[in-house]
């Protein structure tokens, strides 16, 4: 019996014993590209030295304003620093801000959502109205308000972005919890005599929160855009820190002569947002298929 035949028989017998799962399709090409991009970002964030070609802050007046070339892939800036290496150096900061801000928003949203759905009628009313008031402000305006109060800087920018995304998460979490709390399977757990704490931990929270984690990957891209916007306005990471938004702001002056100073950091922001969003959508699809 050839190896191929052997493998076919094993497959057949495995199929007989295992559940007929819904056929899992090959990941789409876009998903694969997005995954590759995020993998690159991860390397750039945790081990920037591996992918950098120059020290990101090495000044060399002689090499200022060089167009993209083999030596400097993304060109150089006004101080002769390598734009590619600076973009790589900025990855950690940008991702950290994006992930942390999303986490803060999610955590705050979860607290508000759980309060609203389990705190009784009065608490639900209070929290829901608070969330609606927060919704009334454009997200960035809310973030600006926080910075006005707390002062500029990467930490406040992160917190500000996190705070301004929280209302959205709070509303989704509340809706999920309210729906699942009265789901038949939760009721049947009550009939079995399980304690409320156990039902909450084993049935309600996992079913409500896991889809939300998937949603949060979609939020990371959004948070990075907002954090970059704040840095661009000079309210987030401060120069000479290599943060994408700050780099955009610094390159703005030379837009006519050195387009590469703004285009490449901008592309990174766009690329990161698109990649995380595509991955988030792929995760959502998978979660729905599993159900």
């Amino acid at each position: 019996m050839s190896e191929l035949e052997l493998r076919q028989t094993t497959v057949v017998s495995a199929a007989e014993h295992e559940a007929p799962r819904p056929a899992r399709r090959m990941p789409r090409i876009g998903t694969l590209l997005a995954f590759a991009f995020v993998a690159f970002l991860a390397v750039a964030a945790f081990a920037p030295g591996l992918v950098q070609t120059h020290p990101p802050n090495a000044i060399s007046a002689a090499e200022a304003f060089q167009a993209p070339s083999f030596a400097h892939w993304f060109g150089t800036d006004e101080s002769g620093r390598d734009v590619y290496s600076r973009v790589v150096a900025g990855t950690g900061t940008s991702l950290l801000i994006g992930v942390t801000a999303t986490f803060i928003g999610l955590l705050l949203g979860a607290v508000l959502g759980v309060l609203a759905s389990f705190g009784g009628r009065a608490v639900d009313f209070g929290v829901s109205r608070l969330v609606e008031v927060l919704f009334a402000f454009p997200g960035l305006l809310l973030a600006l308000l926080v910075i006005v109060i707390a002062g500029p800087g990467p930490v406040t920018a992160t917190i500000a972005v996190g705070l301004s995304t929280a209302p959205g998460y709070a509303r989704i979490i509340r809706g999920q919890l309210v729906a699942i709390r009265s789901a038949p399977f939760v009721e049947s757990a009550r009939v079995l005599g399980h304690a409320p704490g156990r039902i909450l931990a084993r049935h309600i929270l996992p079913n409500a929160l896991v889809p939300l984690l998937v949603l949060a990957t979609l939020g990371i891209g959004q948070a990075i855009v907002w954090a970059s916007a704040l840095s661009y306005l000079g309210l987030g990471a401060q120069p000479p820190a290599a943060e994408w938004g700050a780099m955009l702001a610094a390159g703005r002056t030379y837009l006519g002569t050195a387009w590469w100073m703004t285009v490449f950091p901008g592309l990174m922001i766009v690329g990161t947002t698109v990649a995380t969003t595509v991955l988030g959508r792929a995760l959502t699809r998978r979660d729905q298929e599993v159900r």
Partner: protein
Amino acid sequence: MTARADAAAAAPLLDVEGLRVAFDGREVVHGLSLRIMPGECVAIVGESGSGKSVTARSLLGLAGPGSTTTAERLEVLGRDLARAGEREWRGVRGRSIGLILQDALVSLDPLRPIGREIDDALRIHERMPPAERRTRVVDLLDRVGMPDPAAAAGRRSGELSGGLRQRALIAAALALDPPLLIADEPTTALDVTVQARILALLGEIRSRGTGILLISHDLAVVGGLADRILVMRGGRLVEEGPAEQVLRTPRHAYTRALIAAVPTDRARGERLSVSSAPVTGDGGSDDAVRTGDRPAPPARTAVGERPVLRLDGVTKTFPVPGGRLAAVDDVSLDVRRGETLGLVGESGSGKTTVARLALALTAPDAGEVLLDGRPWSSLPERERRPMRRRIGAVYQDALSSFDPRWSVRGILDDALGTVLPRAGRRERDRRVTQLLDQVGLAAPVGARRPLTLSGGQRQRVAIARALAAAPDVLICDEPVSALDVTIQAQILDLLEDLQRRDGLALLFISHDLGVVRHMSDRVAVMRSGRIVETGSSDDVFGSPQHPYTAQLVADAPRLAA
């Protein structure tokens, strides 16, 4: 008979030979032949997946996207449609063949008055002035027995009851006076009394010379109306013949299994399913036909003296516009050990609220629920919780009662949590396997998610979960209503076996008189929140005292009419 029927007497309305329907290359109907004469009712009977609905739809050129229909012959009123395009089919639908679908709620546009829906067919196919169309619509509604037809034409489907909606659908199908009607499960979602009236209406339509193709999963429904019966299974015809012969002297084993599975007028304790082999694969119905020796059912445990579960003058009201509605009104019931109490009633009678009250999922406004003579409904939840394991529940929709994230094994393991809180991994695994075995499921099923199981398998898992805590009382709310008749037979037999073995007290709730009668020692008949009659199963169904019970019994479809 009308003149039209006489003239066409020689020619069949529908003549199909070698009908094959495939979806994306996978054939689901394998060469079906079928003939319908004027004034004749032909029924196709089969379980889910038998291809009966696909067959019906393909006769209208509506088999669906991705489908290919071929036939050696496909003639409607002598017109060859074997290679008809969409354009040609459109001329056939409505005019030559009318279609009545199962779910009147979704088949009618909720935003338009039913008069407009019926009018559609007239407007599209006939050149008729609006005023004439209006009288015709009212006339049609009158013909299908719609009370106050002129007013009803202005109502939307949401304002009508299920039975009246079905009548409106039939009126729409009759609008162009088609010589042939296809009715796909026309009474499946309806209460028995309503079902009886709809079937009578179809009988009346047939007697005027219209041919009817009736599609149903229910042999008993078909029995009263059909002249000929075709039994389908897995896309093939397994038996065909005059209704009388198919029902009384079926030749094929599958037909016999189908007939044996119908619980109506079958004595308590009599087996319904043919085999009790553990269910492993997906084809639950395959097991039903395999004839084999089954172990003798365990002897019945004696019915206990004192009630285990007792509802004492329980009332539950819900707020409705303009007051409160008593969903359950002064209901008293009791169930003893080893006994089955059947609770029967039509939709909206308050059966499910009784189940929820018994499970202490909702508190009564008046009266009390007692467990073993001790307070149950009046206890605070904290004190009741440790005792909850004594009452198990099985619901109609098993799937939604399972946590979607969990495998079967996880579900059963979770249910064991209240009984064996400190047991080790191996002890619990052993118990889970034992539970699966008790409900006739093979161990590998444990690794699967309920979503990938068939309806019967899901219900077995639900029963296993209810049994995990070794309860004294089992409350079954419509446990077999969503199942095919052979699967239903297996589940009913399983419940009966488990009761015999463990001496369970069973509160069995169903709208289906046949099922309740087969399962119950005693029966309570419920209507609008009240118990109108209670007594031994034989007394209540044999000589009903209350006129409503008598009506229910008279309307229940049965095999030998």
